């Protein structure tokens, strides 16, 4: 690949099908993070997210020739593959690993101007993550793709293999469930000025 080139995802796929190793490495580096985030948001587990990310790109190696640019952009196609792998992983391992506040990220030594505010913010993010993970997976997928990863409805529909209307309705239902669960859990997310201010 020549320096300074920024080939499109579709062009990379064409080259991958042709056996171009550099194109594959470029696609991996470009989309690895988005695939990881998706898997992490859906599964709540770092090991699952790691494995799914690897599995998705293994699938690209095997099935890049099946990609049809007229049907989907590359990222939704990859997230569609990731979705299948995450679902399989969740079926094999039905318990969701919730993020640990004492995890490596939580133990990172940081200097905070407002330590109490920082702690409360982390707790609220954790509560929200827990609420997302407790959503039925069909609503969780719609929330993650559209609200967290900011895909268009069209791309989300491609990744989920359903109609745009279905994405809209799942999103609507998912958001309502999320809001009610957060209220039901007595989370101060929408109630106190402190919480609003933090978010």
């Amino acid at each position: 690949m020549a320096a300074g080139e920024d080939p499109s995802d579709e062009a990379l796929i064409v080259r991958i099908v042709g056996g171009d190793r550099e194109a594959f490495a470029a696609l991996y580096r470009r989309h690895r993070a988005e695939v990881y985030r998706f898997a992490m948001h859906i599964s709540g587990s770092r090991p699952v997210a790691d494995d799914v990310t690897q599995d998705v790109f293994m699938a690209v190696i095997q099935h890049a020739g099946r990609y049809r640019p007229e049907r989907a952009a590359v990222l939704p196609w990859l997230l569609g593959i990731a979705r299948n792998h995450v679902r399989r992983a969740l079926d094999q391992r039905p318990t969701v690993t919730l993020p640990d506040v004492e995890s490596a990220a939580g133990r990172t030594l940081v200097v905070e101007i407002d330590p109490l505010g920082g702690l409360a913010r982390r707790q609220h993010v954790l509560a929200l993550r827990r609420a997302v993970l407790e959503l039925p997976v069909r609503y969780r997928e719609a929330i993650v793709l559209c609200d967290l990863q900011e895909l268009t409805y069209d791309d989300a529909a491609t990744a989920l293999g359903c109609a745009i209307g279905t994405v809209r309705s799942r999103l609507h239902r998912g958001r309502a469930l999320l809001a009610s669960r957060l209220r039901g859990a007595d989370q101060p997310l929408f109630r106190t000025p402190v919480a609003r201010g933090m978010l």
Partner: protein
Amino acid sequence: MSDRGRDDLAAALRQLAQSVEVPPLDPDRERALLEAFDAAQQEKRAPAFRSNVWHPVAAAALLALAATMAWVIVGRFARPPAAPVVGPLATTEFVLWPGAAELPTFESGHLMRMEVPVSALPSLGLAPPATHAAVVQADVLVGQDGLPRAVRLSPDF
């Protein structure tokens, strides 16, 4: 959900989106993928290579088969027909009729001599005799219920 509630939720979700830390690129994982990519490419190329290798082998095998057939045909017409050879001794002894073991115990019966196609003999467990005849005489032992129990080639087939 009110507009305000929707905005709050959207903001909270944005914060959640940013909270996921993606681990830095792991060179080992990337290397493993690239090795898998190389292996897949080699596998893709391998069938073409194998078929190229097998083309001459297949041609040689065909040639050998054709030569053998020609040798057999020429040999058959060049030599006088072989004298009939009496089949092995076993062909004149009774062998159990296929499936007869499942039938009621043999109490009484009779022998029936009949013509049996040579081609059917192997399925009865009999070695076909060296003969050009299409059918041979066989003795079938029929039980009290009219069902065959055993068969043999007639001694004077």
